[in-house]
Each structure stands twice: as structure tokens, then as C-alpha cells.
């Protein structure tokens, strides 16, 4: 995994110039150190300008107006879809559906595929390390259909228990497997390709939560052979409020629509309606045009830099961060070693609650997240109340890791630890 050949090292200082927000002071004399990328990333000028351009120059509804602005808006909106298709290497633009984000994408699959295909006694396999958005939609559809949700456990080192996964599949009746590509707490990168193969062998479809992976490493849906992939724009330099559901065409074709309304229909009569073609069947109502265009701009931006380079940079960052964090007495980092994870470092500090750590780091200008990170079952499994979490992206530097460590030591001094 460590492609970190020095030649590929990013010109981080130049990249930082692309992000206006990074140049402000957190407070007088204190620069901003943004290490909460797992929650949401910052936006490059290119994306901000794409939004600005749309609203200033060609704001109009898509797919219906026979006028210049509407045509321009439609072209830009659909061009974004093509960019996303190439970005994840989907076979067809029909497989790329705009949603509000990962959560909506996962709920869409649960509510449509789930409702059409699950029955009492069927099994949904999820994992202990999932974000709530990849647990709750399945619990809801299970309640409705009588299906059962089972969870793959994790090993001591924070990786998935693949033996347990195989055993759950072997128990039978598994109709759907759903797993995060990269854990938002442990940083674990799961063997999605192998899991897909095993799921398919068992006759199940596989859904992948790509919220933490698509922004940070090259993701190829054909190579991974996943049936569905959900991810969010705002964690990958794009605006909030837009995300993607990728689904294999044959599956999407067979699925009933979710929300009804404009754009998703072919013919409407008072007695009934027929559905529009993919991908529009799943895009009822006026879509989030501006932010979808922003997502296209973000994809362009990430492509210019290169996803492999971004991954290599983050690998370097997590290597260094883990090395520095582990030298702090009383500090525990959760998850596997740097070779098996992405740029996520969730930790606890003996004698200081995660919430207090986050507050004290914030006073030094450092943004991290504290809490359950929407993964309560995982925290219960780890037997910790809350963790503090630093997450890295293409614009973070070694100097910022040093500041993090220095600030952690300040917190320890203050608390007399």
C-alpha cells in the first residue's frame, strides 16, 4: 500500500494556495490547522467559483426549459455526471445518480432494493465498524420486511474479522452485504474486492459506503466489482448537499423508484404513471443543480492532482502522525497500523476526556472532532466513551502534525497528567 515514493510527493504549499479558508487566523496570531477532514473537507477556489459562475451567469432549472440558460445549466449538470462516472470508472452514466449524500444514497438502496427483494428471515450483513448511516437504514428496512441484520465483528487490530464474515455468509439466507470501504474512526481499509467476491458467491449483492474512501484513494467500481457505492461530495472538496449513488445498471433497472415527482416519470395519467429512464428514475424533483456542478469541479480538481498522489500523501501523513502520537504517554490510537489504514487517527488520552482535548486543541487553532463520530456500536465494542479524531487531507502538512502533538502536550500539562 505504501506507494510513497518521494517523487510523487505533493507540492502541498502550492495546493494550500487553492484553499482560501486555510489562510485565515483561527484567532489573533493563531493559524488555523484543519484536521477534521473526515467530517467535511475544505473547498478549493475552483469549486467556489463554479458555484459563483452558475448563480451569476446561468442559473436555471434543468431538463425542461427551451431557453439558453436552462440548456447551459443542463449541459453543466450532466457534464458533472460524466465526470463522476469516469472518476469511479462506472460503465455508464445511467449508473450515476445524484443524491443529497451518502446517507440518502444508502437509504435509497434500503428503501427500494430492500423493499422489493427482502422478506422475512432474509439476512442483511453489516459490520460493527459502520457509521450509523450504514446501520440504521438497514435496521429500518429489516423492521419493515422481517429481515435480520447481522454484524461482522472486528479483530483486536481493528480489521474486519473475515472468518466471521465467511461464517455469516455460510449460515445462508444472506441477500445483501453492506460495508464501509474505509472506517471513519479506525481508518481501516476493508478488503472490499474480496468481500464482493464472497458476497456474490453467496448470491448476495454488496453495498459499499465510500464516504471516507472515494475522497482519499482511487476507487474503481469495476475493479472492486461492487453492486452499489455511496459517497458524499462535501468530503471530497465539493459543496454540501450533493452525493452519489452508483449502482449496476441491471440492478437499478429492476428497482422500483423511491420518491415520486417531476423528472422521474415518463408519462403521468390520473390512473397511473410510468417511470423515466435511468438515472432520472431516481432523481425526483428539481435536483441540487449548483452543488452537482460544484461536485464536477471538485472531480476535475482532484484529477488534476491525482488520486494516487493524494493517497500517497495521506499515507505519509498518517505514518508520521501515528509515529508522533504513539510517543505521547497515556495516549491510545485506535485502529490498525499505517499500512492498513487511511488518514484517520482516533485517539484517547488518559485522564482527559475527548471533548476536553478537542476544546483545548481548538484554543490552539486545531480543528479535530470528538465524540462517537456517528459510530456508537463501534465505540461500545472498543469500550471507550468518546474519542478525539484527527483526519488528514491533501493540504495537511507535517508541521500541522507537530502542532497537534505540541497542543496535546499542553493539554496534558494543564490537566496535570
Amino acid at each position: 500500500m505504501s506507494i510513497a515514493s518521494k517523487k510523487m510527493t505533493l507540492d502541498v504549499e502550492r495546493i494550500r494556495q487553492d484553499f482560501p479558508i486555510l489562510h485565515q487566523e483561527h484567532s489573533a496570531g493563531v493559524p488555523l490547522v484543519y484536521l477534521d477532514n473526515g467530517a467535511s473537507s475544505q473547498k478549493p477556489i475552483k469549486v467556489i467559483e463554479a458555484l459563483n459562475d452558475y448563480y451569476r451567469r446561468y442559473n436555471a432549472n434543468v431538463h425542461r426549459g427551451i431557453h439558453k440558460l436552462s440548456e447551459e445549466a443542463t449541459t453543466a449538470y450532466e457534464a458533472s455526471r460524466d465526470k463522476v462516472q469516469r472518476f469511479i470508472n462506472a460503465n455508464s452514466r445511467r449508473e450515476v445518480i445524484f443524491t443529497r449524500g451518502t446517507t440518502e444514497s444508502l437509504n435509497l438502496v434500503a428503501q427500494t432494493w430492500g423493499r422489493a427483494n427482502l422478506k422475512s428471515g432474509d439476512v442483511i450483513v453489516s459490520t460493527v465498524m459502520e457509521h450509523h448511516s450504514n446501520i440504521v437504514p438497514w435496521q429500518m428496512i429489516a423492521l419493515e420486511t422481517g429481515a435480520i441484520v447481522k454484524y461482522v465483528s472486528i479483530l483486536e487490530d481493528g480489521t474486519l474479522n473475515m472468518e466471521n464474515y465467511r461464517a455469516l455468509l455460510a449460515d445462508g439466507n444472506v441477500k445483501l452485504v453492506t460495508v464501509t470501504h474505509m472506517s471513519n474512526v479506525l481508518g481501516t481499509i476493508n478488503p472490499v474486492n474480496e468481500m464482493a467476491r464472497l458476497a456474490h458467491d453467496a448470491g448476495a449483492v454488496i453495498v459499499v459506503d465510500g464516504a471516507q474512501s472515494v475522497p482519499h484513494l482511487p476507487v474503481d467500481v469495476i475493479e472492486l466489482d461492487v453492486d452499489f457505492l455511496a459517497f458524499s461530495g462535501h468530503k471530497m472538496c465539493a459543496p454540501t448537499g450533493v452525493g452519489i449513488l452508483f449502482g449496476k445498471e441491471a440492478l437499478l433497472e429492476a428497482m422500483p423508484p423511491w420518491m415520486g415527482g417531476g423528472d422521474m416519470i415518463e408519462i403521468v395519467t390520473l390512473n397511473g404513471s410510468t417511470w423515466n429512464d435511468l438515472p432520472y428514475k431516481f432523481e425526483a424533483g428539481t435536483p441540487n443543480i449548483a452543488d452537482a456542478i460544484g461536485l464536477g469541479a471538485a472531480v476535475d480538481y482532484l484529477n488534476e492532482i491525482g488520486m494516487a498522489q493524494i493517497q500517497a500523501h495521506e499515507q505519509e501523513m498518517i505514518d508520521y502522525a501515528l509515529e508522533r502520537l504513539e510517543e505521547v504517554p497515556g495516549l491510545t490510537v485506535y485502529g490498525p497500523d499505517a499500512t492498513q489504514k487511511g488518514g484517520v487517527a482516533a485517539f484517547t488520552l488518559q485522564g482527559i476526556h475527548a471533548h476536553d482535548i478537542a476544546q483545548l486543541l481548538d484554543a490552539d487553532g486545531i480543528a479535530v472532532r470528538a465524540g462517537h463520530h456517528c459510530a456508537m456500536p463501534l465505540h461500545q465494542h472498543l469500550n471507550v466513551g468518546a474519542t478525539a479524531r484527527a483526519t488528514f487531507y491533501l493540504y495537511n502538512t507535517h508541521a500541522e502534525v507537530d502542532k497537534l502533538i505540541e497542543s496535546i502536550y499542553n493539554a496534558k500539562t494543564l490537566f496535570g497528567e
Partner: protein
Amino acid sequence: MDLYRQHILDHAKNPRFAGVLDPCDIDHEQHNHTCGDFLHLTMRVDDNNMIDAIAWDGEGCAISQAAASMLGEVVVGKSLKQVQDISSDDVLALLQVELAPNRLKCAVLSLNALHQGIESYKKVRENTKG
């Protein structure tokens, strides 16, 4: 940093009234789901509706723990009604800090525990009076 003044750290590191009262009249758990903090409140109430004894158990950040500890000192010897009249501003006055909205929840976790614990206690008692 201002938030972590000496009196707060003192209460957070050496919380007063730590533990669980058994037996007790009021037994209530209060959670803050956003950060995972929780408090287990147990209290004894005498025949005149005065708080006899209090104990806190649980885990959380320095602010939530210190506020619980400080409130413990305030409520012992007070009537249930007096405790119900304590406001979140009173808790902030005890802590002597200004809090951003996201930390306010930590500060008032113990107050919410007291208020909700007392409310369910009163309800149960009314019902059993029947």
C-alpha cells in the same frame, strides 16, 4: 485556556459525591448522545421533600463532571422545588465561565438529570398516592 480554570479542574479531577446511593429515592440516567457523556444520578429525599443525599456516577468531559460536582454541593439540603428552580444560567454562574453553545449541553447535563429525575420521582409518587 479560560475554560479550564483551577476550580473546574479541581472538581473534574476530584468529583464530590461520586458513587451510587443504595437505597435511594431517585435513580436517573442522563445521556448526551452527541458526545457520549452520561451521568447516573441517585438521591435520597426526606419526608419534607428535602434532598438528603446525592451521588453521581458516569463519565464525561471536565465541564460536565465539574458541573455535576458543583451542583451536588448546591442541592443537598434544598427542597425539590428549589432544585427545580435552578436554571442553566445558575450553573454557568457556578462554573464562572462563558460557554459556546456546543459546550452548554455539557454544562447542563447534570441539571437536566436533576430536573428529569425529580420530575419522574414526583410522577411516580402521585400515581402511587392514587
